[in-house]
């Protein structure tokens, strides 16, 4: 059985199994995130990882392509791309991509 952890997303605590996708957690629990294209092309779902960077999957190539045009801040991620491995604190950030 997968280990269960807790993350705080936009101030909302949510429990998850290690390796779950943030977008799927949002679909189940409505975490106040904003997703449009849902697969790393629109940049609407940008989030900032406030705590627990090391507990989140590495940036994907798609994230590198899109985020390079938006910010140098490595704590900014695309919510649709990340998997949570252990505890983290995440907040939405609007970079006005669309």
């Amino acid at each position, binding site marked *: 059985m997968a280990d269960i952890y807790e993350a705080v997303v936009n101030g909302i605590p949510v429990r998850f199994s290690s390796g779950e996708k943030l977008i799927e957690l949002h*679909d189940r629990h409505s975490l*106040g995130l904003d997703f449009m294209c849902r697969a790393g092309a629109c940049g609407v779902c940008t989030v900032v990882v406030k705590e627990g960077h090391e507990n989140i999957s590495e940036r994907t190539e798609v994230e590198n392509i899109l985020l390079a*045009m938006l910010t140098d801040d490595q704590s900014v991620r695309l919510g649709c791309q990340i998997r949570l491995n252990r505890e983290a604190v995440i907040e939405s950030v609007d970079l006005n991509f669309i």
Partner: protein
Amino acid sequence: MNTDSMQRLLTSQARLFEHAHTDSMELKPLGFKIKKEGFRLGAYYCNPDFLLLPFSNCEQLAAFNKDQKSILSALFFAFAYAEIASSETLALTYNIAVAKKIFDIYSDEYMILFHETAEETDHIITFCAVCKGILGRTDIVGPHNYGHLKPVYSAFDAFESKLCKHGYGAMYLFMRYLLNLALKQLESFMGQGVSEENRHRVAHEIIVGHATDEARHTTTSLQLGYEFYQRADKSSRALVKSLLKQSIYTMIDMRFGNPYQHYQHHLAKRVLQEAWKRPEFAESSLRFDELPELWQRQNLIIEPSPEYLSSQRWLSQQIARLLEMLECSLPIRNEKFAEFIELSNSKCAA
């Protein structure tokens, strides 16, 4: 046309397209695998509970075994992609028509829509192969089979002479955006909730691969559509806005409120009707056409799956975004609109 947002769209779409096709992401080989394999009992091609039917309240439906649910999932998968392919057929004609009207041929801007057209061709071939493998036929693909696509075609032709070139481009891309949303409401959610060991691996790869292409297409529809909209003259903008309002009303009407009136319920009934022809359903005590009568007589409620509810919430938020971009509001007409507004505003954990 050289604004920051246009430049950013050009750069990101070109890079993402090249990334997607560097390690080939063609879907055709996956479609051909399903065509060759035919139908495989036991595996879930999508989540059967995503079908908008009274599963928990109808005795006959609640008694389905895993093989029967697997058949429903395969048929729904095939019907969903038949419809998606039919809607993509529009893009084959109009992507190029709009690109030619507004951009220099084979310029960087033109190539965005050209690349997407090439991908749509790949998708349609794939989905025809899926339909052949699962349904044994491909003639359900084609816009003539889907009543809700006819007004879209009519609008493209009827409005061409009434709109400036950017207005025409905006109208096309915004209408394409609504079709993108409709297909993503199916595709992004119908596979959720199925465990890895139960799911049909190739079907899952098709869902993920197609969703990746469509993510770019959806982004183009909204961003490029908005870019054109801003460049259109005043009367064209007013006309585009009015057509979109009408289309959004229709979309809300078909996807919110009483689940028995949802488009997805009608799709699920087509799936059930097809399933009823198979030997695995032969022992049912009722004919297919007796089921809807039974649901009505017993006043059975459809309880949508969590995945279906998520899909509605997502859709409502996308429609709300479009309305906001167009500085457009929709008065609440009935309970369907009230539900739409409530879902589009939902931001907190349930």
